[in-house]
């Protein structure tokens, strides 16, 4: 299939360019690792009444939250790359060729998915010496859930980028959208500690469902309903948002 081949082609190109900038990749890991080392210990203190008596418990609660935060913001900033490719005329050069239009977006989005999953693997490895313990099968499922989540946040970022077409507005919007979503998903401190009205509001936040699913996986409860609920919500929204991005991407072009 043309779409599959072309998506792979664009993915390879984008990933190849990313690998040529290893310093950038390393720096993007600095923040999550800082949180991992300096924030998780706080969590142990805060959660001590809720069953987090050891570091292992704290990391089992915090690492999935960190995955969601990274997946959310990593994806939300992907629009910058698209805008700079548009501005540099790269997209235009591709559009004159018979390459699949869908592939031009999907290949780029999948590069961000891949990058985020690799970062998640690094985070997992760093957390192991601190006492994180998680079942391999559950871990792999959580990576898959993360992948779908990144696809969603990336395509949301593409939607915004294609609508505003300007880096400054994109930055403002992404921060405005990202902050409440991440807080209302309980990525830093689990929602069980939140007042009731925040917990109710969080029911409307798809990323809160995904965070709960992710935490259930790390807690070894792969059969909990919230796991498949979170996955289903993420998948449905990612598909809808990608569909819309590709609509926005293709308008004004024959």
């Amino acid at each position, binding site marked *: 299939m043309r779409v599959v081949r072309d998506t792979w*082609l664009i993915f390879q190109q984008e990933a190849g360019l990313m690998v040529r900038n290893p310093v950038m990749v390393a720096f993007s890991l600095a923040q999550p690792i800082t949180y991992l080392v300096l924030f998780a210990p706080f969590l142990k203190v805060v959660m001590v009444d809720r069953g987090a008596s050891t570091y292992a418990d704290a990391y089992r609660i915090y690492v999935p939250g960190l995955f969601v935060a990274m997946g959310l913001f990593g994806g939300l900033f992907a629009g910058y790359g698209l805008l700079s490719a548009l501005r540099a005329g790269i997209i235009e050069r591709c559009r004159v060729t018979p390459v699949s239009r869908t592939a031009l977006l999907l290949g780029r989005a999948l590069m961000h998915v891949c990058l985020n999953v690799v970062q998640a693997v690094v985070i997992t490895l760093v957390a192991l010496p601190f006492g994180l313990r998680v079942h391999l099968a559950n871990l792999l499922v959580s990576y898959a859930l993360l992948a779908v989540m990144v696809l969603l946040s990336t395509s949301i970022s593409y939607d915004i980028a294609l609508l505003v077409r300007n880096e400054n507005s994109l930055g403002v919007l992404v921060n405005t959208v990202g902050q409440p979503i991440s807080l209302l998903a309980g990525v830093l401190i689990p929602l069980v500690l939140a007042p009731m009205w925040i917990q109710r509001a969080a029911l409307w936040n798809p990323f809160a469902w995904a965070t709960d699913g992710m935490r259930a996986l790390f807690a070894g409860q792969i059969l909990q309903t919230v796991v498949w609920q979170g996955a289903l919500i993420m998948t449905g929204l990612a598909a809808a948002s990608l569909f819309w991005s590709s609509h926005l991407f293709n308008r*004004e072009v*024959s």
Partner: protein
Amino acid sequence: MIEATGLRKSFRVGRGRGAGTVEAVRGVDFAVRRGEIVGFLGPNGAGKSTTLRMLATLLRPSGGAATIAGVDLLRSPAQVRHRIGFVAQASGTYDDSTARRDLILQARMHGRSKGVAQELAAAAIRAFQLDDFADRRIRTYSGGQRRRLDVALGVIHSPQVMFLDEPTAGLDPPSRARMWQEVRRLREDGMTIFLTTHYLDEADSLCDRVSIIDAGRIVAEGTPSALKREISGDVVAIDFAAADLADPAGGGLPAATKVLAEAPYVRGSEPVDGALRLYVDSAATAIPQIMRALYDRGIEPGAIETRRPSLDDVFLAKTGRSLEE
């Protein structure tokens, strides 16, 4: 190979009360035959890029029709893409990539297998003399090297029709001459070439035929020599810039314009950039008369120059403005 009729494009701009439309291209007709090099010559904002981008399937025309290499542009843009190459006005390369990587990607986007793409890239690197820097980051290339890469990318799949948007803008004279050679070589390889330029000499020496475009309309069309023949006679240019700078009250240019515009031996006159351009039947007989008329009025001319008409004179005659300003 290219046939366009009534091609139009208007853009909606602004929102709310400031909204309006920009008529970028107001209906252009032209035809390009197989193996020709045809140029669009026009000033900034004339609609050259917009026309090219419509033909290259990047913009949907607001009206009109076109066929390219026998394929209908509006009905089968995907088919058109197989047959054309396009080099945009601003280059579209990744700063962190290399010429070789981008060339391979380009060939692969045209559906070539990995092996074939590698061979095509190697051949393009040789043909466009990119060897010295093909594996260096593109951000380190000079303007001329970048432009050669742009053209190499556009032709990697040996298209039947090639669109070049200002292929030599911003290049120094040696690089421009080299680019002209490349373009002629492409034509020898069997491509039909449609380019835009705002350089007179480029239109003159590179193009078999030229369409002069201004404000979205084609105002003249033909071979460079036929276009210039329309302006029969000679051009006499009298420069007042230096004299008027020394004595701003002297007003040499307006005074001379008044005197000479009405003279019987002058067929037309236009002030351009501190100089007065006169169109006369023969410079040899007109110059003595011009000099006498100026001295009688006490007007001190600066340098006087005579030459054969250029495409700029054609443009001036059609639009009342000069391209060189």
